[in-house]
């Protein structure tokens, strides 16, 4: 009869005390990780499943846009701004164009202003749709991603019609836009507004009020209002904490003061004010408001020549200006210094996702490793813009 190797006596599992690792474990997350939305690396110190410290490492997509900008002419900077936040290129163009216009004292043609607001808000919806879809993916829900990308495709078609490109547009120029809206574009935009309005309910049915989704995101990664302000968070991340602050309303630019829309804030419907679910729902609500703005702007869009006020030569007088605009991710600031010559002296970009991500080390301790994915997803970061 075969004998096993076990000793004859009653076997008792005996583990020496020092063999159990009770120390903190260091866990590397990223840079190649599906939930980091690009190439973000986070080094975690964990105690079992609980994160005790999270340190983000960024810069994997760094191209030093600011150095590029110092070596090209004023208008040649615009294509570079596209490539920062590649999910909201229109909003990136918009901020830069307004900064230069204010320095030059340039009044923009009415039709161009309306086209700009329409494309900027369309891009906000498109960007929020990506945020919603990929947030679902992070949590483990695949289907909402397909729903949101279906609608995003329609917006990209509208952009293709007006600018010729689907992702990086180089469309909003200093003093106006690159091309006038083609015939029938306005009607197509209004058609999209009608099409998009009922879709919000679909997202709410499939994802927002899904029990699993709520369990995963409610009370996770709570950012109190005072912390959010001290970290200078902006956009939906700030508003989810209950701070009613939207630059379109509070520091108006372009023609946003003419439109009727409300500023959405987090209310802690399913958990605490400022949790991940609130950041999600603020984006959903904002899409409704953006849709309203688009409809009003498209209806009010006058006839005329949108390229009328685009200057042949952009000459920026000596001076400096800090322009901030509300992009899908929050406050995008351009600090521009000019010496009156043909190149910028300094273009510093205050990118919203860069600032929003910096809060991660403050809110991560005490959460589970799996919840960290939910938190990073809810901050809606774009690494192209963080690393610039």
């Amino acid at each position: 009869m075969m004998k096993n190797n076990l000793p004859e006596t009653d076997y008792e599992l005996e583990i020496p005390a020092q063999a159990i690792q009770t120390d903190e474990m260091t866990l590397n997350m990223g840079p190649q990780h599906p939930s980091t939305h690009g190439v973000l690396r986070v080094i975690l110190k964990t105690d079992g499943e609980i994160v005790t410290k999270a340190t983000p490492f960024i810069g994997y997509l760094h191209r030093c846009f600011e150095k590029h900008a110092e070596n090209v002419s004023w208008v040649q900077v615009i294509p570079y701004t596209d490539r920062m936040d590649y999910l909201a290129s229109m909003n990136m163009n918009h901020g830069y164009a307004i900064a230069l216009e204010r320095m030059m004292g340039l009044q923009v043609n009415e039709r161009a202003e309306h086209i700009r607001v329409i494309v900027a808000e369309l891009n906000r919806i498109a960007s929020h749709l990506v945020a919603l879809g990929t947030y679902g993916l992070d949590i483990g829900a695949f289907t909402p991603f397909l729903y949101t990308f279906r609608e995003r495709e329609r917006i990209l078609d509208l952009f293709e019609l007006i600018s010729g490109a689907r992702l990086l547009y180089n469309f909003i120029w200093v003093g106006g836009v690159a091309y006038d809206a083609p015939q029938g574009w306005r009607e197509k935009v209004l058609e999209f507004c009608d099409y998009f309005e009922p879709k919000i309910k679909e997202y709410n049915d499939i994802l927002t009020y899904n029990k699993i989704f709520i369990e995963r995101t409610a009370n996770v990664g709570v950012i109190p209002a005072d912390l959010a302000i001290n970290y200078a968070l902006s956009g939906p991340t700030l508003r989810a904490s209950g701070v009613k602050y939207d630059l379109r309303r509070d520091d108006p630019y372009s023609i946003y003061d003419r439109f009727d829309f409300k500023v959405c804030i987090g209310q802690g419907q399913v958990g605490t004010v400022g949790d991940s679910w609130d950041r999600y729902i603020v984006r959903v609500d904002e899409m409704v408001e953006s849709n309203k703005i688009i409809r009003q702007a498209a209806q009010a869009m006058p006839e005329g020549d949108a390229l009328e006020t685009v200057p042949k030569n952009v000459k920026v007088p000596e001076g400096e200006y800090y322009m901030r605009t509300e992009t899908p991710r929050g406050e995008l600031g351009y600090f521009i210094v000019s010496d009156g010559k043909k190149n910028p002296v300094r273009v510093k970009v205050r990118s919203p996702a860069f600032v929003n991500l910096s809060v991660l080390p403050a809110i991560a301790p005490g959460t589970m490793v799996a919840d960290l994915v939910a938190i990073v997803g809810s901050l809606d970061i774009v690494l192209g813009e963080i690393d610039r």
Partner: protein
Amino acid sequence: MTPEEIKSSLEAKFPEAVAGAGLEVLQPFLKINPAMIYQVCQFLRDEDTLNFDYLMNLSALDLGENLGLVYHLTSLSQRHKIVLKTEVSKEQPNVHSVADLWRTADWHEREAYDLLGVVFVNHPDLRRILLPEDWVGYPLRKDYQTPEYYNGLRVPFPEEQGDLYDEE
């Protein structure tokens, strides 16, 4: 509060702090003595009538002789804005960090250190942020020379050196 009022209340508290001002430009600024920047920021943040609780942006730039630092502040409750400016020399680019007043300054200051070499005294974690840790030099300084090699890799192609976009 108007920029004039902010200036006068600062001067009343710290007579030596304000070294100059530009109130007639698009965005009014105050020039602050670099040694006083921390006290000034603390005062601006904590005084009830000023209450600058939101640091919008902190940027550094090369001014030739000196390095400039620009702080863009706003207040969510009072809805006013002010720009603070200060200058430090390139030989001794030390300035007190404001990262414990506004935590958002943490990463902005690391970026200024990384790209322009401003040293923030009392910063909690002053490391390079965008560039690799072993990078040499501060790229956004105007006198920066692109290194020929980085870790044994050739950095620029020879034809890319010089004014590629200079048409005139």
